[in-house]
C-alpha cells in the first residue's frame, strides 16, 4: 500500500503544547478522517505537513516528496482549506480565482466556473463581504479547481449551516470519486465524517490514539450488557470502560469485538445484549480510555 502522507516520529513543541512521536499514514486514494477534540493538535499537524511549521524531529513525506525540502512541488499538488479564511479579503471572488489560477498550472477554469455556479457564489463581490458559508465555499472551490492529488481540509465545514455543509461535502466527494484523490479531513464533528471516510485517525493531546480503517473502527467497538458478576479477565477483546447497569448488570464498552466472541461467555447467558456504537460514541469511549488507561487489554 502506498501512502500519500507518511509521517514518522514527528515531534514539535510550542509553549505548553507538544506533538510527541506522532506517526501518521494516509493511504493513497483514502478519505482519511482526522479526528480529535479541540486543541488535540490537528491544525498543528496539518501545518507541519504543509511546511508552515518546522518539526523538531521526525520525517514527513507528502505525495512521495520530503517536507520541507520538496515543499514547492508538493504544494502544487495539494489543495488546502484551512480552518480560518486565509484568502485576500480585498479580492472579489473572480479575482481570487484569477490569482489562484496564476500559481497553479493545472487549474481548471471550467471546473471553477461550474463550482461557482453550483455554489451560487456572487463572482463580483469582495471576499470581505461574503458570509462565512460563502467564504468556505470559495476556499473549497479554489482547492478543488486546482485539481490536487491530495486535499487537506482543516475543519472545512466548522460553523457552516447544514445546507452549505452538505453542498461542500458533496462537491468534495464528487471530485474524489472522479479523480481518485486522497483526502485528509480534520474535524471534531464526528458524525460528519462517519458517512464518507474510509480511514480514521484519532489524535488526542498530541498523540495518535488510533489509526485504522473506518469499518474496523466502527465494527469492533461495542457496548456489551452483561450479567452481574461477570469478569473480563482473559477476554479476547479490550475492555475500554466498565459501568453498572440496571437489574444488577454491568455495561462494558469494548474494542476488538467479533461476533464469534459470544462463545467466550460460554452460553451462560452472561451476555445479554451487544449494542453497536456510532462513531461519536466510539470516539468518546476511545478518548476516555486513552486518557485513563486503567482498562485491561484482551
Amino acid at each position, binding site marked *: 500500500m502506498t501512502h500519500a502522507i507518511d509521517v514518522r516520529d514527528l515531534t514539535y513543541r510550542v509553549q505548553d503544547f507538544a506533538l510527541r512521536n506522532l506517526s501518521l499514514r494516509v493511504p493513497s486514494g483514502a478519505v482519511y478522517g482526522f479526528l480529535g477534540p479541540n486543541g488535540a493538535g490537528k491544525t498543528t499537524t496539518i501545518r507541519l505537513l504543509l511546511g508552515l511549521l518546522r518539526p523538531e524531529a521526525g520525517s514527513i513525506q507528502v505525495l512521495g516528496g520530503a517536507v520541507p525540502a520538496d515543499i514547492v512541488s508538493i504544494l502544487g499538488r495539494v489543495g488546502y482549506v484551512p480552518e480560518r479564511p486565509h484568502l485576500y479579503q480585498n479580492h472579489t471572488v473572480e479575482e481570487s480565482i484569477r*490569482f489562484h489560477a496564476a*500559481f497553479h498550472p493545472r487549474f481548471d477554469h471550467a471546473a471553477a466556473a461550474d463550482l461557482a455556479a453550483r455554489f451560487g457564489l456572487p463572482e463580483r463581490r469582495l471576499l470581505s463581504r461574503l458570509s462565512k458559508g460563502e467564504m468556505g465555499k470559495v476556499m473549497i472551490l479554489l482547492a478543488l479547481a486546482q485539481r490536487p492529488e491530495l486535499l487537506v481540509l482543516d475543519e472545512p465545514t466548522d460553523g457552516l449551516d447544514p445546507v452549505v455543509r452538505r453542498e461542500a461535502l458533496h462537491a468534495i466527494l464528487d471530485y474524489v470519486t472522479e479523480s481518485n484523490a486522497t483526502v485528509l479531513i480534520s474535524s471534531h464533528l464526528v458524525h460528519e465524517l462517519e458517512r464518507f471516510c474510509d480511514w480514521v485517525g484519532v489524535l488526542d493531546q498530541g498523540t495518535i490514539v488510533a489509526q485504522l480503517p473506518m469499518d474496523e473502527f466502527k465494527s469492533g467497538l461495542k457496548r456489551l450488557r452483561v450479567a452481574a458478576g461477570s469478569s473480563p479477565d482473559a477476554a479476547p477483546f479490550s475492555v475500554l470502560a466498565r459501568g453498572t447497569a440496571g437489574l444488577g448488570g454491568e455495561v462494558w464498552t469494548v474494542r476488538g469485538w467479533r461476533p464469534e466472541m459470544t462463545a467466550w461467555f460460554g452460553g451462560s447467558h452472561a451476555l445479554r445484549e451487544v449494542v453497536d456504537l456510532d462513531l461519536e460514541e466510539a470516539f468518546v469511549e476511545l478518548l476516555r480510555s486513552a486518557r485513563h488507561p486503567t482498562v485491561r487489554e484482551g
Partner: protein
Amino acid sequence: MFRVILANQWRESRIAILFLAATAVAIPSWSLWGTTPGPWEAWHLLNAAQQSSLAYPLLALLAALTLAAGAWRPDHRARHVYALTLPVPRSRYLLLRYAAGLLLLACLGMALAVGAGAATVGRTLPRYLEAHPLLLAGRFVLAGVSAYTLLFAVSGITARTARLLVAGLLLLLAVSAAADLLGLDWNPLARCFEALMSPYGPLAPFRWTWMLIDV
C-alpha cells in the same frame, strides 16, 4: 504571476497611489505659480524652486511608505498562510511583491516627470537658468527606491523580529540619552542616522538638491 501580484497591490493601495500621482503632477505647476516675466523673474523662479524642493523628497518618502505597507498588508491580514501555501519559492514570491511595488513607484516617477515637464515646457527661462524635469523625476525614483527597499524589508518582518528591531532602537535611544547626560561626545543614534544619510548611505538621494529650475 507578476500581473496578479501587481493587480493585488494596486487594489490595496490604489486610492493612495492616485492621490500621490495627482500630487506629483500638481506640485511643479503649483510651485511655479505666480512667477511672471520681469526683471526679478530669475530670482522669483529660483526662490520658488527652492521653496518647493522639500516637497519632492517628502513625496518620495510617502510613496515608498505607501507602497511598502501596501505590498505586505494583504499577507499580514491573512497571517501569511495563503502566501506560504502557494507553490512558489518564498524568495520568488518576495521578489514579485517587491517588483510590483517598484513598478508602481516608477509610475509615480512618470507622473512627476509629466507634471514637471508640463510646468516648464514652452516656458522661456531667463538666461543661465535651466529646467530639470527629468533629473527631478529620476531623483524622485532613486530616492523612492532606496526608501521603498528599506521600508519593504521592515514591513515584511515578523512580529517577533519587529519587536527585536524596536527593542534595538529603544536601546540605541537609551544609550544616546545616557551618553548625552554623561557629557560624552558620542551619540549612536545620530551615528546611525548619519550613516543612512551619508553620501554612500542608502538614503543619500534624499540629501541631493531637488530643484526643478536651477542654474
